[in-house]
């Protein structure tokens, strides 16, 4: 093989730069591209494993749906704020207990937070929210309802998009802040200051503390984790169904497409994957500190 019709000489062509050879500059021989490697690091996805991972995304969607359901109930006056408050607090206690139980099974000495620090944080949250709830209630008084709904929707979408699905335990700033902003907007629409306080406590529980528990579950009890995800999804669909059937249908469609359809799409598109690697790639430096440790 040669380029520009160069005659094959008795002297073989060598791939060097410093030697003047009788071949033209763009000459290649039959060993061209023999070091090309295709799709080297490709992973083989298995459908059900991907579905299981995608279940986490569906779970988060359902959390948002559950939150919106609770808000709808509060706004229509079907749910008293005290009920919600006590339920949230008791759920928080249960969740905390579960969290501690799961932690003591795994590493016990690595956590530096004591029970006192947790209690302090909880007290801070509650007092701050309680103190600010009258102010928060009047925040969106003069803003029109449509604007409030639009803002909340955008913020919840931002929360879902920026959620750290890989490692939810230290909560991502943008996702948590967006969720809290949306919850403040929605909570300020409720009739009383106590409603606002209850809503905010519930939001804190659902968006800030629940992912920490989920992370523990995923690490230490994977089978139960899947069960919990499925349970939350069902709860979300059911809650929405009790309010509006059309919404529930749409929501379940969304769930199905995220959990079942998208993995299918991902696996089906793997066949079009075409990565090439070769000696022309940038060098990756693998740090080997073993020389220095001895």
């Amino acid at each position: 093989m040669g380029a520009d019709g160069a005659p094959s000489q008795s002297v073989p062509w060598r791939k060097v730069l410093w030697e003047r050879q009788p071949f033209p500059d763009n000459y290649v021989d039959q060993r061209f591209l023999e070091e090309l490697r295709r799709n080297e690091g490709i992973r083989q996805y298995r459908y059900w494993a991907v579905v299981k991972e995608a279940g986490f995304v569906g779970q988060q969607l359902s959390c948002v749906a559950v939150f919106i359901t609770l808000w709808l109930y509060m706004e229509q006056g079907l749910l008293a704020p005290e009920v919600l408050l006590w339920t949230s607090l008791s759920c928080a206690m249960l969740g905390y207990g579960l969290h501690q139980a799961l932690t003591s099974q795994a590493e016990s000495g690595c956590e530096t937070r004591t029970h006192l620090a947790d209690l302090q944080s909880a007290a801070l949250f509650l007092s701050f929210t309680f103190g600010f709830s009258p102010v928060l209630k009047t925040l969106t008084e003069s803003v029109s309802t449509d604007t409030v709904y639009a803002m909340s929707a955008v913020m919840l979408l931002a929360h879902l998009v920026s959620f750290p699905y890989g490692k939810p335990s230290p909560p991502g700033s943008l996702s948590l802040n967006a969720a809290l902003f949306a919850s403040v907007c929605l909570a300020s629409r409720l009739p009383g200051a106590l409603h606002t306080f209850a809503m905010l406590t519930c939001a804190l529980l659902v968006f800030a503390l629940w992912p920490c528990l989920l992370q523990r579950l995923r690490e230490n009890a994977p089978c139960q984790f899947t069960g919990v995800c499925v349970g939350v999804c069902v709860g979300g669909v059911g809650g929405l169904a009790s309010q509006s059937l059309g919404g529930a249908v749409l929501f379940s469609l969304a769930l199905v497409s995220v959990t079942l359809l998208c993995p299918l799409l991902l696996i089906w598109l793997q066949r079009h994957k075409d990565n090439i690697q070769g000696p022309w790639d940038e060098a990756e430096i693998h740090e080997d500190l073993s020389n220095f440790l001895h």
Partner: protein
Amino acid sequence: MVLKIFFPQCCNRADSGLLVGRWVSGHDSAVVLAVIHYPFIPGQVKQYIQQLQAQSGVELSVLGSWSLPKEGQEGLESFIRDLSTIFPQEPWLQISRQVGKTGFTCEVLGRDQIGKAAQQEEEEDEEKVIFVHYEQMKVMLSQLHPIESQNPDNRSEPPSELRQMFQTVARSELLFFLDRYDDGPLKSTHWQSEGREASIIVELLKRASVPLCVFISWLLSVWTWFCNIRIFSVFPLSFLSSKLSTCVQLNYRTEHLRTLSSPRAAEGHMEFMRKANILVSVLVDVALGVLLMSWLYRDENISTLAHTLVPAADHVARQLEELLQWLMGAPAGLKMNRALDQVLGRFFLYHIHLWISYIHLMAPFIEGILWYGGLSACLGLTFALSLLSDMVALFTFHIYCFYVYGARLYCLKIYGLSSLWRLFRGKKWNVLRQRVDSCSYDLDQLFIGTLLFTVLLFLLPTTALYYLVFTLLRLVVVLFQGVLHLIVDFINSFPLFSVGLWVCRSYRLAEGVKFRVLCDEPGTALHLLMEMNPLRFGSVLQTYRTATYSCYPKDSWGALVRKLFIGELVFPWRHKTTKTD
């Protein structure tokens, strides 16, 4: 080689004699200053010239001879030629003129050519001579611009030919004292021979100015001693006196009067012009002030003014109250937070109520204050205007307070919002590197930060609106004060004397010269007339403007808008400290 001879016009018809003047070094030109007539004794001439040279510092010498032959003086020609031996001078000029003809003839004799015939020079190029006629009085009084510094060590290159010529004529004033009508040993012709100018009024003023200056400087020293009493340098008083424009103007005028009343005469053109400008400015100021006073104290104008002042203040307060009521409602359909709105509105309404009570308390005294304040106009219109500006500042003090409150609140809010917005995105301001870095916050920090961010964001329109309204009010007041200060500054700094000089005697401020051809016949030398090119009006203003503490905008437009947006307090006018020459 071209030889330029500057010849005064007054000597065009002078009797024959010796030419006295100066060779301008390095430029091949000579300046003729005067003609000394016969009879004279050469020794006396030399002595006289040396005496003048010592006194005036100009390198005078005898340049040559001048002959305008009249009847009965034919024998003078040979006498003149012999003179060149008596006064040994490097080139010796022999200028002669025939009555009735316009051109001069000039022969230049070098030292080695004295006595030789002139036709030996015909092989070489004949030296061309150009006569430049100038009006001596005008050149003596005129000043060439741009003015060079007085210190000869600072000059990097030697002055130009024109400048040297002007300086020569200006410094040779002593030469012009003796003229041909005196009974001294020498009779000379120069511009003073036409008739010396003097004025009795000017002489009287000059005599009277000395004791007047002494008196004024004594008054000023008493005043300065009074101002420097220790009690006035206590903090609140010194701060107030630096802010009140009346005090600043007082200090400024004191400086001026001190300059005026210094006993020594002005050396140099710039100092003279400065003193003259200051004097004229003070006189015009006082005249305008007296005019104002005569209008003010006539026909009960003061009481009319006082009686309209209190209702005007009431009216302003009522308008402000209405404005606040409008803001407390739903102004222009904006989304105001009702609770905060009510708080801020009530707070400001209370302030207005306080201020109105204060005005009503002062109402009986206003007429007296105005009467005594109007007396300050006798010191000058600038003082009256400064007093007015200060009174406006005092009466609108509440607007200033409102502006400061609103601006501080707004600034705090903007600062908090920007910091919490960074927290919202999970970033932090790195003070060391002066940039925004990512940061992992704790849960409680995130929670409280988001709550505060929401609260601040929704309260922003309310605060911003109050801030906007009060900033606009404050800017209106500042603008009015700025206009007053501009007028004061204009009266302080406008060089009226220089402008008057430019109008009446424009030759005294010359930017350059222009030449007109008088006689250009072949065979005779070229005759040019040199006339002054007066300075342009803009250059007059720029050169002679009195330095003042003028107020000018501290920030450019972009920086001002940025400061208003962030909520930083703006003080748009800055006082420049007086430059000392």
